[in-house]
């Protein structure tokens, strides 16, 4: 299974401030009633974006200036809460290709990596500075360089890092583990045979 090597992502950004953004907020549970992930994009941040009567609330994702953004910027502990892959899937299908935040919840981070959507960690001050640049010029192009571990915008570099294993997986085109896992099948049988409860 050949996957794209993800080394660089370029696009516009949008800043959705706040810490501890949980997966219930990224995609409310009632939209998880589906047997495929298709179409989840329109429900990203639904309750933050829409009032009870379905009309738009003021939210960065509803702001036409940021339509088409490929980078989502946020605060710390992003993606906490449930293990639902519906959350990164909704962001990906909304159009995001990378998330930049102060820190990430573990399961969300892993799920995103498996989708080929890097989650890079930036310092709080740098995130705010980058958000400021985007606010000034929503058309600003941002580039995340995974090899260099930095985000560049308007000629300014900000450190943006991923743990080695995730970065390596993305840049080598092995972000989806299934090919590696299938390769190990003979060993799987061997280890299973040593476990009494497997019989």
């Amino acid at each position, binding site marked *: *299974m050949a996957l794209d090597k993800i080394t660089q992502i370029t696009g516009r950004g949008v800043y959705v401030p*706040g*810490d*501890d953004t*949980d997966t*219930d*907020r990224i995609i*409310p*549970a*009632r939209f*998880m*009633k*589906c*047997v*495929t*992930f298709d179409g989840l994009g329109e429900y990203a941040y639904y*309750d933050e974006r829409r009032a*009870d009567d379905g009309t738009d609330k003021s939210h960065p994702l509803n702001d036409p200036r940021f339509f088409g953004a490929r980078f989502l910027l946020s605060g*710390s*502990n992003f993606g*906490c*809460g*449930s*293990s*639902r*892959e*519906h959350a*990164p*899937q909704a962001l990906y299908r909304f159009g995001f290709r990378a998330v930049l935040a102060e*820190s990430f*919840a*573990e*399961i969300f981070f*892993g*799920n995103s990596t*498996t*989708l080929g959507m890097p989650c890079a960690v930036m310092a709080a001050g740098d995130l705010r500075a980058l958000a400021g640049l985007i606010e000034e010029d929503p058309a600003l192009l941002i580039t995340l360089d995974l090899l260099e571990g930095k985000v560049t915008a308007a000629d300014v570099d900000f450190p943006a890092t991923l743990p*080695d*294993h995730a970065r*390596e*997986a993305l840049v*080598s085109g*092995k972000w*989806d*583990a*299934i090919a*590696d*896992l*299938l390769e*190990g*099948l003979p*060993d*799987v049988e061997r*280890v*299973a045979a*040593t*476990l*009494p*409860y*497997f019989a």
Partner: protein
Amino acid sequence: MKETLLDKVWAAHTVRELPNGSTQLLIGTHLIHEVTSPQAFGMLRDLGLKVKFPQRTFATVDHIVPTDEREEPFSDQLADEMIKALRANCREAGITFFDLPTGHQGIVHIVGPEQGITQPGTTIACGDSHTSTHGAFGAIAFGIGTSQVRDVLATQTMAIRKPKVRRINVDGKLSPGVYAKDVILHIIRRLGVNGGIGFAYEYGGSTFDAFTQEERMTVCNMSIEGGARVGYVNPDKTTFDYLQGRRYAPQGAAWEKALTRWSAFASDAGVAYDDVVGFHAGEIAPTVTWGINPGQAIFIDERVPRPEDLAEKDRATAAEALAHMKLTPGQPIKGVPVDVAFLGSCTNARLSDLTEVARYVKGRTVRAGVKAIVVPGSQGVATLAEKMGIAEIFRAAGFEWRGAGCSMCLGMNPDKLVGDQLCASSSNRNFKGRQGSPTGRTVLMSPLMVAAAAITGEIADAREVFSIS
């Protein structure tokens, strides 16, 4: 070399190290439900792959099942589609499905232990973050995403990095009216909602030694709310006694052998942990949340915090929480009016939870205007509770007695909060919108505190309401 239970279970299940430094880990038991599995089966089909070890996967249906009108087809067409998809996928792959008509359906984290599928020294994965519940048996159990559900179906393995281990000791005797739920809410309050990132929590100490198996499950269940994907308790006689005689537990000679094997998985005495934290049981009082994450919790006799009194980094979230919860900084949490009381979820809907609450609820009445519902965690729990007269005690007190499922824990079925209703809830998450209404408000607490709220119509101290001292 001395090892932790995590080290030993990890070693026994390691297939190989992958090039990126993670482990290809064999998943002994794979649990699936209707919400996070259909897409995985779809991916499997797209790749032309089959389920590798169907006998090591077990399914049930919990999130979307209605708890009142359970006849099919369900009135919610999407829900109906989901149960049918799971049924078809299980039939095709030869996976055991604890379906509605079997009498064994229930919340996946209640069904596994109840059936004796959850066993010490095993690895358990499920597309659900509260899989940590199963750690109460000395298993390494964690939630996974849908792509990993696909991986486990196809290979019975997944790529995962070994966490560090933080030992959490709780010693001493809990005061009357204080429960396992208060212990874990207290731990999360103190260590923070992301304090456990990168760690597995090993719970121990004399309080845990004395806990029943079901109390241990309550604590392990909420490890993920503290940021720890894995939480476990070393297996002991309490664990073994719970498992003996259950449907999938080893029988006869195999049972004796299993005991020896299981005991050996416990962490070695004197092993070095990556971190150690300690609490005294006596310092813990009935705990309730006031905010929109499980770490925003206080003792029942404390006041709602003022953001300015909190650490700088917590202030913005606190202000957001107070606005959502419609609480005033500095007000007592006791006395806040309650619209709904929900007794259920994989944290607290086991037989022992219901039995304990029923003891106190007997002869009391739910306050007029409060909607109070009891949702047993499984059909097994429901049947026993009916037989023991517990269901009748709840009904007589004015609680609605429902069929088994996740229900109002996340509002994917018809049980939802309406508008900004405030719910006293025995579940595990108080995130905005969690209980089905974007403006709904959730206050997490122990099952007995939920009953106290139902009876008084406000957030109350169960010790006062039920004269516990």
